[in-house]
């Protein structure tokens, strides 16, 4: 039997993560993500898992990867400044293909900024924060309920594709409390990394999806390195092997984009104006869309739930559709996803932008005003 309970977004992340099998958490306190660490410290030992408060953000990311190497499902959480510090080790997890989940509850920046105020300024950091070409999955929840279910999805995707996955939250949903229908654990789909069962496989030998199987820790004594490596897991200076490795890493996400990408679409059938939003901004956008429709405006909403990889194909279908005349991108930054939209939409239709950087939330009224502008 499921039950509806009042939960904070940050709290729901922890419950979802535990339901997905999280048994290790390492972190460092930072507003507005701290409740995730606090709740993990309470809940993990109750399920036989381990919580550690590390000395800094860098070591938190390192400890998470260390635990994940032994087979544990591991997570850390942070906000902008800490997310910056974790980036080098996130890159390490990308190239070594160690599954783990990083939660970033975005706050106003740059630097210390407005620590308790909402922002979506880390979207491009989530995509390009670590150096070099690397694959990224980032998922952005818009409700407390989604914090729970998308935390599970983050773990499942990280296991399936052996890659770090970012739960890209914002203060709006992180500190929001609302009812969550917690399902029976038996009804939750949990994905575990595919094991290499026979010893004939090389540690980084990939399947047709581009994902290598997992060698259990303590069987076979394999090597893991952040250096460019061949299928055996040992370093190489070969340009050819390196090219193959980077192409496979990028490809395993790009080629499986249809499986990874999730979007929310509302009232697109007759929409002439489409509001493009993600994460906490969705709440204002949906209010505005409903109000505008009630007033007779033909407006719809398109929301990438998976922000990275960006739902490029679907946005192109929408923007190149005959009815759509305008896309309004609303986000809490100076313009990040709007660049992605411009790149994809090109001259299909007009793009308007609502960006807010003062630490307050975009209101339905502000979006509504923009919707009405062109009509």
């Amino acid at each position, binding site marked *: 039997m499921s039950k509806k309970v009042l939960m904070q977004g940050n709290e729901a992340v922890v419950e979802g993560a535990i339901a997905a099998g999280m048994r290790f958490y390492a972190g460092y306190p930072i507003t507005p993500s701290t409740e995730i660490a606090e709740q993990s410290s309470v809940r993990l030992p109750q399920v036989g898992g381990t919580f550690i408060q590390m000395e800094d953000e860098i070591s938190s990311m390192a400890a998470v990867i260390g635990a994940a190497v032994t087979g544990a499902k591991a997570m850390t959480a942070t906000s902008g400044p800490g997310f910056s510090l974790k980036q080098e080790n996130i890159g390490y997890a990308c190239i070594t293909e160690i599954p783990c989940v990083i939660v970033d509850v975005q706050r106003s920046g740059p630097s210390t900024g407005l620590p308790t105020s909402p922002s979506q300024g880390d979207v491009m950091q989530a995509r390009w924060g670590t150096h070099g070409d690397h694959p990224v999955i980032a998922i952005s929840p818009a409700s407390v309920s989604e914090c729970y279910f998308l935390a599970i999805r983050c773990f499942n995707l990280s296991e399936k594709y052996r890659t770090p996955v970012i739960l890209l939250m914002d203060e709006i949903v992180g*500190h929001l409390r609302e009812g969550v229908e917690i399902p029976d654990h038996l009804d939750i789909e949990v994905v575990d990394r595919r094991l290499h069962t026979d010893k004939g496989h090389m540690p980084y030998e990939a399947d047709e999806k581009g994902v290598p199987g997992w060698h259990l820790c303590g069987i076979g004594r394999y090597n893991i390195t952040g250096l460019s490596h061949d299928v055996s897991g040992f370093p190489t200076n070969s340009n050819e092997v390196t090219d193959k490795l980077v192409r496979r890493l990028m490809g395993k996400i790009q080629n499986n984009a249809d499986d990874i990408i999730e979007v929310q679409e509302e009232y697109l059938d007759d929409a002439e104006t489409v509001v493009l939003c993600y994460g906490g901004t969705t709440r204002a956008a949906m209010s505005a869309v409903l109000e505008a429709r009630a007033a007779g405006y033909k407006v719809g909403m398109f929301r990438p739930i998976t922000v990275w990889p960006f739902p490029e194909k679907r946005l192109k279908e929408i923007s190149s559709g005959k009815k759509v005349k305008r896309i309004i991108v609303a986000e809490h930054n100076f313009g990040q996803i709007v660049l992605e939209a411009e790149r994809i939409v090109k001259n299909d239709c007009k793009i308007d932008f609502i960006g807010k950087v003062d630490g307050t939330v975009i209101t339905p009224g502000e979006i509504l005003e923009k919707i009405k502008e062109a009509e």
Partner: protein
Amino acid sequence: MAKMELRLTGSGGQGVILATIILAEAALSGGKNAVQSQSYGPEARGGMCKAEVIVSDEQIWFTKVQKPTFLLALTQDSLEKYSKGLDRDCLVMADSSLDLPESLKGMKVLQVPILETARDVVGKSFTANIVAVAAINSALCLVPFEVLKESVMHRIPKGTEAINLKALEEGAKLVRS
């Protein structure tokens, strides 16, 4: 039920955030939809604090209060700041110790001795938020008393049940529903 947008304000440490959590949880238990959020500065104690609950039978999209249908103020600062620009039909509950600003002239204002009741009748100032929760519930007819009591018991620290129950009962008496 019409959508209710509650804004509770005061000073950090008075427990207004917990008060909104309790109200949201009670509303949820009462079969309604509820969202709760807060905004605050760096101060854990002192400093202005604002917490909000939206209660509705419908799905709630935007999470912040836009047009409060109810305002609670426990400090003079918060009363003055948040009483500006209210709709005429917004119900204001101000602690009896506060001076009513000009802007509230002609508005529905309940002056309720929340802080005094907590301090002198219940005997502990820290129960002011629970006194307030009960008074708000009576004023707005949000949920049955038993439902409210359950959420209070769920959210308070162990060992404080008796004093909080007293606060709840005294708070409910302050406003006739």
